[in-house]
């Protein structure tokens, strides 16, 4: 592979990413990751999630530190609003994933980014979760993402960055495609 002569700096280590791609295509078992979160109910609709470790590259890995997230519902739901709603975390995940993708693709394509701002909005008819109308789904009926990008690139190049980041995004895939979910339970 030819050496990349990259003058732009988006803070993405593209050589490391490309190196990982080569290494993992030769050792696909190391590419199998498991992402984890734990959660504990506190009171009412309030719970707290923690994220510490994950599995990947053939072994247990740890974040630099552990992270805590409060999850709750707003006061108009008669809750205490100790944190964002679970569905808002989904929007956070989508925005974070697409933005990271834009930075990585821009670095690879030698495009200097100056700012990348995303606005994400998920529409939801809560008649679904309230069980009012069985024809209304619980989840989003659609998600709108708008990106405002300032970069040394044409409009078309920026559109291509955003399109490519969707193509490679895990969260975009999680939201747009079905996933088998297995929930088990044990009594303590």
């Amino acid at each position: 592979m030819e050496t990349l002569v990259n003058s732009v700096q988006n803070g993405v280590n593209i050589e490391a990413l490309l190196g990982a791609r080569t290494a993992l295509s030769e050792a696909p078992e190391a590419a199998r990751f498991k992402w984890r979160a734990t959660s504990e109910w506190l009171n009412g609709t309030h719970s707290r999630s923690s994220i510490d470790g994950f599995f990947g590259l053939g072994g247990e890995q740890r974040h630099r530190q552990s992270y805590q997230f409060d999850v709750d519902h707003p006061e108009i739901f008669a809750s205490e609003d100790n944190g964002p709603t679970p569905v808002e975390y989904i929007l956070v995940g989508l925005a974070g994933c697409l933005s990271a993708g834009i930075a990585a693709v821009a670095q690879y394509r030698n495009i200097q980014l100056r700012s990348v701002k995303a606005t994400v909005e998920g529409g939801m008819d809560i008649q679904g979760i309230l069980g009012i109308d069985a024809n209304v789904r619980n989840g989003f009926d659609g998600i709108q993402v708008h990106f405002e990008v300032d970069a040394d690139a044409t409009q078309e190049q920026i559109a291509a960055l955003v399109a490519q980041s969707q193509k490679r995004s895990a969260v975009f895939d999680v939201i747009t495609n079905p996933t088998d979910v297995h929930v088990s339970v044990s009594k303590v």
Partner: protein
Amino acid sequence: MSVAPMRRTAAVVDVVVVGGGHSGLAMSHALSQRSVEHIVIERRDVGNAWRTERWDSLRLLTPNWMTRLPGHHYDGDDPDGYMSAGEVVFFLSAYADKIAAPLVTGTTVLQVEPAPGGYRVATDRGDWLCRAVVLASGAFNKPVVPRVAAGVPEGIAQLTTHDYRGPRQLADGGVLVVGASATGLQLAQEIHLSGRPVTLAVGEHVRMPRVYRGRDVQWWMLASGMLDQRIEEMDDRDRARRLPSPQLVGTPERATLDLNALRQQGVAIVGRLVGIRDGKAQFSGSLRNICALADLKLNRLLDGFDAWAETIGLASVVGAVERHAVTQVDPSPRLGLDLKREVRTVVWATGFEPDHSWLGVPVFDRSGRLKHDRGVVDAPGLYVLGLPFLRRRKSSFIHGAEDDVRELASHLLGHLDATRKLQVAIAA
């Protein structure tokens, strides 16, 4: 061959070419020119797949003037037309006669295995011992059906493009066509025109106009050198080889067939089929982005053509620069389809793969794909032809055979020479 060898009493020949399609015949021509003794084994008759494994309305995606083989070209009165499958068979048969190809027809290869000094090719009509084997049995033998097919409810007919002949074969009622390559779009259109409501599931695809600035898009790709691009120039070889066929159709009107055209005609366009749960098909919510990507790539392709035309001073000879309407997607594309209620037939236009199941030589990678370097297979004296982007972008096209065959025949000749010298050295 006048005398078919009996099984196990093997006949001897320098080279066995497996497959009497355009690749095998072109290789035969190259070997004859180099005075290499060889045979071409064909399971039925020349161009068998074109006779028995393609749908009725199929036409080549390349115009007649491009349809040529070494020493043979189209000389009819419709150079801008597109050959039907029957015309391709006629073209190939005429070629086989012209080059006096040493064909062994009606013979099925059962097994190719290593043997002293080369390979043993076992067939249902006897065995051959040879020093080199050319796999020219095609790239499109086995239809690939995704795993989700297992979820299609009973009572719903399923067809692949291998079995599909025409709409008359289908029950009245809804049809789900899966796949948005040339095949998927062509089938969706003709099934829709037969009065059956069609839903087309669209994943990654390659959008292309039939005619651009007054010239066939294949002319642009050929003349600008794109079809001659070599695989080693590609950043991602696997991806280049996996690219679906461009959304094209060969009609007398030279009409463009794209998702906008189908949508206007009334075909329901949905996202990639990603699951079937409780008899309900689930489509990806990525349709809008998939279409945006195809539009961006189309514009990049046309930008490239325009720049090339400008550079070589053609800009005033061809028509004016054109840009195509963005692909329209319904405001809320359907994400699900109740197959039991709305669909009688599912047509899988989800691609083909080569069938090398009879190749008993350890030359397959972990995922079962043939290991080769641009047609030189990972075993001495074994070659493969006609796979997508084998050596060049045009490798799987009829006109693409010539350059590949010339280069691989030279390599093969080198192998025969080297092993002959080795045998002489051992004998001495």
